[in-house]
């Protein structure tokens, strides 16, 4: 059956059309304004970052060259012709990579414990006292906002060179980052179990232990694993400021133009990070599967 769309007479159509054009134009004007503001910011930023087209064009050639050189041995051969020469330091690097993973692990676990303790204290549904909540929240925010490298620099000054400053820096940053995520999970729980325990006379600690923790544990574990992935990446560079791990060898290799070492270490880091990511993704899917509860 053919449908016909009734078309109103022009006199009736005219105001509708005008209205339509006007609203389209308004949207376009808004977009143009946003683009103009963005362009202004970009120009200012380009000046601020000393952007230089000439430098970039000559640099982009260097970029190709640089990666080309990364794949050359000192002898001028391609790296894959002589893997033994390319990975001459593999024992040391694997050991340092292990240290990196340990720094990330110990830092993540310490930070997770800190965040676990902190998150209940800044959740609106568990703590009445506003000042306690705000104080804990601000502290977590501080831990999160100061970059871990800055913490590492300060800790290297206090604790001396070595892995400890790296571990502490990662732990503090993790406490801040996870504390926020954890408290968001806690604020979204079902309050009925908590009320149940409160009504049978359970203390605050018992309410948290038996009412809250069973609901949030799998989410916490999943966030902690995600953070571990981030921290493995972070731990690879924390050695740059002298806080242990493979970063120290990497920066020496980059600064002294040992190009084949750079590519070998980068390759090890990339493989390691990818393996960790894959494993942790597997675990996280398990944790958040229906059986794990949510």
């Amino acid at each position, binding site marked *: 059956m053919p449908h016909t769309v009734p078309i109103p007479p022009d006199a009736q159509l005219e105001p509708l059309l005008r209205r339509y054009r006007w609203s389209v134009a308004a949207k376009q004007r808004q977009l143009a304004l946003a683009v103009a503001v963005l362009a202004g910011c970009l120009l200012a930023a380009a000046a601020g970052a000393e952007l230089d087209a000439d430098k970039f064009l000559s640099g982009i050639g260097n970029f190709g060259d640089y990666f080309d050189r990364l794949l050359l041995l000192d002898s001028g051969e391609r790296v894959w012709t002589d893997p033994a020469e390319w990975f001459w330091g593999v024992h040391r690097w694997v050991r340092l990579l292990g240290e990196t993973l340990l720094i990330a692990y110990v830092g993540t676990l310490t930070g997770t414990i800190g965040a676990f303790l902190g998150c209940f204290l800044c959740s609106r549904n568990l703590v009445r006292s506003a000042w306690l909540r705000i104080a804990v929240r601000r502290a977590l925010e501080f831990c999160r906002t100061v970059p871990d490298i800055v913490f590492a620099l300060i800790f290297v000054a*206090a604790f001396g060179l070595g892995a400890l400053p790296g571990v502490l820096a990662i732990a503090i940053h993790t406490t801040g980052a996870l504390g926020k995520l954890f408290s968001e999970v806690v604020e979204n729980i079902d309050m009925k179990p908590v009320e149940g325990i409160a009504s049978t006379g359970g203390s605050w600690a018992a309410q948290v232990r038996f009412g809250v923790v069973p609901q949030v544990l799998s989410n916490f574990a999943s966030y902690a694993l995600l953070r571990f992935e981030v921290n493995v990446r972070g731990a690879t560079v924390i050695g740059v400021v002298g806080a242990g791990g493979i970063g120290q060898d990497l920066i020496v290799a980059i600064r002294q133009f040992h190009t084949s070492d750079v590519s070998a270490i980068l390759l090890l880091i990339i493989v390691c990070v990818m393996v960790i990511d894959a494993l942790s993704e597997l675990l996280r899917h398990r944790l958040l599967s229906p059986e794990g509860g949510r």
Partner: protein
Amino acid sequence: MSDAPAGLRGAFLARRADMQAAHPRIFAASWRARSGTVAIFGGLLLVYAAGLYELDVSPAVIFHGLGRLADIAGLMLPPSPGSWDRFELYLDALGQTLSIALLGTLTAAVLAIPFGFLAARNVVANAVIHFLTRRGLDTIRSVDTLIWALIWINVVGLGPFAGALAIASADFAAFAKLMSEAIEAADRRPVEGVAASGGGRLAAIRFGIVPQVLPIFASQVLYFFESNTRSATIIGVVGAGGIGLHLSEAIRVLEWQQTSFLILMVLVTVAAIDALSQRLRAAITGRR
């Protein structure tokens, strides 16, 4: 303490022995059920202890360091730039940091758009292209911003330009990944609608997918801009411009008052950017 707890609990406690005899399964220590949990936590703690030992972390070192840290914290007060000239220098560097973050984020976002589409399963059906793009992006993503900064310094020399490029390279892959996920989660119906009314493949993407993905993507760009303001402060540590250079310099020469002042400047800036981008995000996602 009262001698007899009242109510349900009291009634239970009074008859505890009977209840235990009647329902032994409920009261039996459920070690078998718990053994998995215990094994997991035990394993975690074991590796933790081994890690602490392996990394030479001892209580003595920690306490000594904490003492030094307290001294440093004392020296940091009150935060002060030292002189007006230096304050201007810091402000300039802060502007540079923001420039690096903005340029880096936007460059990454623009570069990520085509790759996001390439890596999305519902746009490019070719499994080989899909796999290669995904793995390539993963590879780029595994390299930290700081390492990219070191590499770009070798290519374009010291300065903020290298910093902007470092942020762009590190984030571009993360963006592309998020973008491709957003595209894969997009509703199929608008795409089918465009196709049904005779639109080509490009038209289907332009009018079917882009309007759905754009607000998500824009709010992600804002998130990244926030986090890049933080990253941009640290790439200066290796010489890629911005406030990080002054920060690491102040720490190296043990000028703690300047250090705390610089940290304070970063905190205030990040808080301001946070607030700004929250409002922008609300405007973007609310309007559509």
